[in-house]
C-alpha cells in the first residue's frame, strides 16, 4: 500500500495526534495578537474576572490542533500518510467545554465520523472527523467536527 486515499479511510478510525503544554507566555502571546480580552492577557484583570485567572483563547486551543495534525501527518510512515489533503471547507459543533489555564497539557485525538463522495469534485472526497482535546485527567476540554478534502484514488 502506498499513500492513503479517500477510499482507504475507514469510519471509526482513531488517532492520537500528540500533546501540547500551554505556557502562560504562549497564551498571552497568541492573545495579544488575536484575542486581547483581559482574561487572556492581564493577570490581575483575569484574577478578578469570571474565570479567576488567565485562560487561553479558544482560537489558540484550536490552532494547536492544526499544528499537531500537520506534525502528525508529516511524521507518519510513508504508507500511512494521506494523499494530498489539508484544504477544508470549514468545521462544525466547536465547543470549548472547560477553560485552558497556564501549564495545562492537552492531548488531541481524532476519530473518523463520515466519508462523503462529492459529485461536484470527483477527484476529492470529504472526510468528517470528531476532534477532541483532553487534559491530563482525561477531561474533555474542547471538541469539534472537522471537515477535510482528501484525494480519491486515481482511476486507471
Amino acid at each position: 500500500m502506498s499513500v492513503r486515499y479517500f477510499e482507504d479511510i475507514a469510519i471509526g478510525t482513531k488517532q492520537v495526534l500528540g500533546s501540547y503544554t500551554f505556557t502562560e507566555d504562549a497564551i498571552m502571546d497568541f492573545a495579544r495578537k488575536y484575542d486581547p480580552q483581559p482574561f487572556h492577557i492581564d493577570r490581575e484583570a483575569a484574577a478578578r474576572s469570571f474565570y479567576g485567572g488567565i485562560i487561553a483563547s479558544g482560537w489558540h486551543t484550536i490552532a494547536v490542533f492544526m499544528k499537531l495534525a500537520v506534525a502528525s501527518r508529516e511524521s507518519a510512515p510513508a504508507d500511512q500518510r494521506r494523499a494530498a489533503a489539508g484544504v477544508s471547507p470549514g468545521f462544525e459543533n466547536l465547543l470549548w467545554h472547560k477553560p485552558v489555564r497556564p501549564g495545562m497539557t492537552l492531548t488531541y485525538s481524532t476519530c473518523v465520523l463520515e466519508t462523503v463522495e462529492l459529485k461536484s469534485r470527483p477527484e476529492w472526497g470529504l472526510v468528517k472527523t470528531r476532534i477532541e482535546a483532553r487534559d491530563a485527567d482525561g477531561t474533555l476540554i474542547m471538541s469539534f467536527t472537522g471537515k477535510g478534502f482528501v484525494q480519491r484514488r486515481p482511476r486507471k
Partner: protein
Amino acid sequence: MSSEPRYFEDFHIGQRFAFGHYEVTKAEIIAFAKEFDPQPHHLDEEAAKHSMLGGLSASGWHICAMTMRIVVDGVFGKAESRGGAGVEDCRWLKPVRPSDVLRVEAEILELTPHPRKPLGFARMQWNVFNQREQVAMMINTPIFARRDGP
C-alpha cells in the same frame, strides 16, 4: 448600527454591527502558518499556485484568529463579555490572500437569557468580507453576555 452595547439587555434580535479594517500581509500569513499550520499552500507562493487554493492563502485558523481580533477591537472589547461557548458552524468560502482587507458584519439571530445566572446567550452570525465584497468566511456562534442588574 448600534454603538457600544455592554449588557445582554442592550442587544435585540436583528441588530447588526459592522466593524474592522484588517490588512492581511504575506508576512503575517506565513508567520501564523509556520507556527500553527505549516502546509505548503500557506507558506510557499510557488507551491501554493499548484494547490487547490490556487495561490498563497491564509490558514483557515488564521482567518478565525484575525476575525476574533476584529470583533474584540470592535464592540465586544467594550462589552461585558464572558467569552464564547463555541461555534455551531464555520465555513471558509473564499481564500484570504496577501493584501486582502477584512471586515466583519455581525447580526444577532437569537437571544436567550440564562435561566438562573446573570448571563445571556446571543447567537450571532459573523460574515467576514474581503475588499471585493465577497464573504470569505461565515461563522455562526453563541456568545455569553452579562445581564445588567444588581
